[in-house]
């Protein structure tokens, strides 16, 4: 039962980390919005899915790559990857802001309760995924290979591949940038102020709607970056991938303590590793079961998640 786990431990760890970092960025999307609005943005999973299509549109339509193209090299490679990243972030960021405008802002202005917004979020999620389903005839869309998946080196029997390395490093960097933004920038402070006490923040002259829009935008950008890494590693997307990825990232956010940015980081990593470890020990069919058992256990003993105190404020 444990032979695969022991034999392939480091390989599994590398894969788990790459997956974990993707979860971290999507989890940021959930956690940022929750911190400010105390609401789960269920549409975040679809924002991710739209981001993956953004990344593919960029390589396919802006640079004319197709399934049979040779991977890019040198300066062209860097250019295509960066444009892909930005387009994915733009797709996701704009979708997030759009969702805020269409589904939440008016409800908020009318002072409806959170349950109404929650339903609205689920509705938006369905609309976004159905629109993409119709656009793509429910078919999977393969991404052209931009980055040759070179095996750089082997450490303790684990292959370090270029795409996984880039994912881990770049996703880590993006996380740090966003975390610093929330912690140090003027806007970040405003976000945290709103999250601590909305009325007090308003009295201090903070433009509430602007802060909320920026929160959605930042959450969307992080989610979009995750979408880019997902496409680079898996070279595939479909209208319904948001559900599985979104649920995992949401779980990661809750695991770390939703509303807590560092919690999202550890939650994402723990979840990514737990998934591959569980799949290797028990079989892939037990993957999801294991994750939710872990989640239930954590919440049983620490209801506010590993990093806790989420209910009171967004912590940076």
């Amino acid at each position, binding site marked *: 039962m444990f032979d695969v786990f022991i034999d392939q431990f480091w390989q599994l760890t590398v894969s788990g980390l790459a997956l974990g970092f993707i979860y971290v960025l999507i989890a940021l999307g959930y956690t940022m919005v929750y911190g400010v609005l105390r609401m789960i943005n269920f549409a975040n999973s679809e924002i991710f899915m739209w981001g993956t299509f953004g990344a593919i549109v960029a390589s396919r339509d802006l640079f004319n790559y197709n399934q049979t193209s040779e991977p890019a090299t040198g300066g062209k490679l860097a250019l295509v990857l960066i444009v892909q990243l930005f387009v994915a972030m733009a797709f996701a960021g704009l979708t997030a802001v759009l969702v805020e405008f269409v589904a939440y802002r008016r409800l908020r202005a009318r002072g409806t309760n959170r349950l109404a917004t929650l339903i609205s979020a689920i509705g938006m999620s369905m609309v976004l995924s159905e629109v993409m389903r119709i656009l793509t005839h429910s078919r999977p869309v393969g991404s052209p290979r931009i980055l040759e998946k070179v095996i750089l080196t082997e450490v303790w029997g684990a292959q370090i591949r270029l795409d996984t390395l880039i994912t881990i490093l770049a996703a880590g960097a993006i996380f740090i940038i966003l975390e610093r933004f929330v912690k140090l920038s003027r806007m970040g402070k405003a976000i945290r102020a709103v999250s601590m006490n909305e009325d007090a923040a308003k009295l201090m002259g903070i433009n509430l709607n602007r802060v909320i829009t920026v929160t959605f935008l930042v959450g969307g950008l992080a989610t979009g970056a995750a979408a880019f890494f997902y496409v680079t590693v898996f070279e595939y997307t479909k209208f319904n991938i948001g559900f599985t990825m979104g649920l995992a990232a949401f779980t990661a956010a809750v695991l770390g303590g939703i509303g807590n940015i560092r919690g999202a980081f550890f939650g994402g990593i723990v979840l990514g590793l737990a998934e591959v470890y569980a799949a*290797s020990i028990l079989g892939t069919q037990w*993957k999801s079961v294991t994750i939710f058992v872990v989640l239930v256990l954590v919440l049983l003993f620490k209801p506010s998640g590993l990093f806790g105190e989420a209910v009171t404020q967004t912590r940076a």
Partner: protein
Amino acid sequence: MNKKIQGSAALVAAAALAFGAFASAPASASVKTYSLAYQGPLTGGEASTGIDEQNAVKYAIKVFEAANPNIKINLVSVDDEGDPAVASKVAPGVGTNRKIIGLVGPAYSGATIASLPYYKAGNLTVISPSATRVSLTDPKSPTAKSDYGRPIFHRVVATDDKQGPALAKFATKGVSSPKVFVFDDQSSYAVPLRGYVEAAIKKISGASVVGSGDSVINTTTDYSPTIAKIKSSGANVVIYTGYYSAAAIFVKQLRDSGSTAVFAGGDGVFNQEFAKLAGKSAEGARLTGVAGLADVDAKLEADFKAKIGVSSGVYAVESIDAANIFLSGIKNGKTTRAAMNKWVKAYNFKGIAGATIKFNQHGDISEGGFAGFLVTGGKLVNQGPVA
């Protein structure tokens, strides 16, 4: 516009419509229209298989209509996405639409099981070109209560208890001391097929099943745990019993991990689209499937392309045969569901590949087997029958 004028305008419109219908009637006075249906995945990840099959059904109808100018066939497309959950939503409407007197399909075994109750209730005869799960025609299987399709289910394809050994044999051909890792996608097609494959490998001398296998739902995109298991098991042959869109994702990741093990799949993976989605990683993949129309009759293939506009795809021969059984029934005046069911049960003619099609009491044909295909240069190349 006052109400009176509005009313008379509507009357004129209605009259025009009625007259139009009447005016066009004499030209087609002796033409009778009957409805058949095709069911399979027409959208979604498995759409390629369904579209291939439906094109073949359309071809059979075109040929039939040309030979029988006073019969018109209305083909109803039933899209189940190859998914049991979707099938159980669309099947009730098809089952109660009495105009449909016969159905080619469902393409996939899981979708077939989900649709069967509605077709049994409506006595709608179905002939599947590609559902290979054994229990559909096996009254003794443990799941017979839900799966056994008698009296309405028939198929013109061989079953997975034949495919399993063929796949095992073809996958390990020419590999010295094959160590085989087998995994499925948890579907009602893949799980039993995996069982037949594993049993068959154990019977091949020198070959063995290694590792604990795996069961990976087809919404998965990260196959790294499965690949870790394959590496740890030391397998030199990997067999996947699921469907092509997931197989393409998997085989890319397998090759990216540096593995050179032989990759093989069953008729679920057997689709042109697999080679397209997986690109270079698909090269050398070994698949079991059925001979294409071009293999059977090059002239027929040319005619197919001229009439349909595209080359024939997978299961073209089986789909044409299935459609022809219904079409010949219509020609012989079997235009109700009950009459069609009797016709199909007693059917005993040659199919387009030359073999006799005759169903046994469970709905199976005695002929038929599987051929081996090798992905070469992005195409599925027939290597001949695997006995």
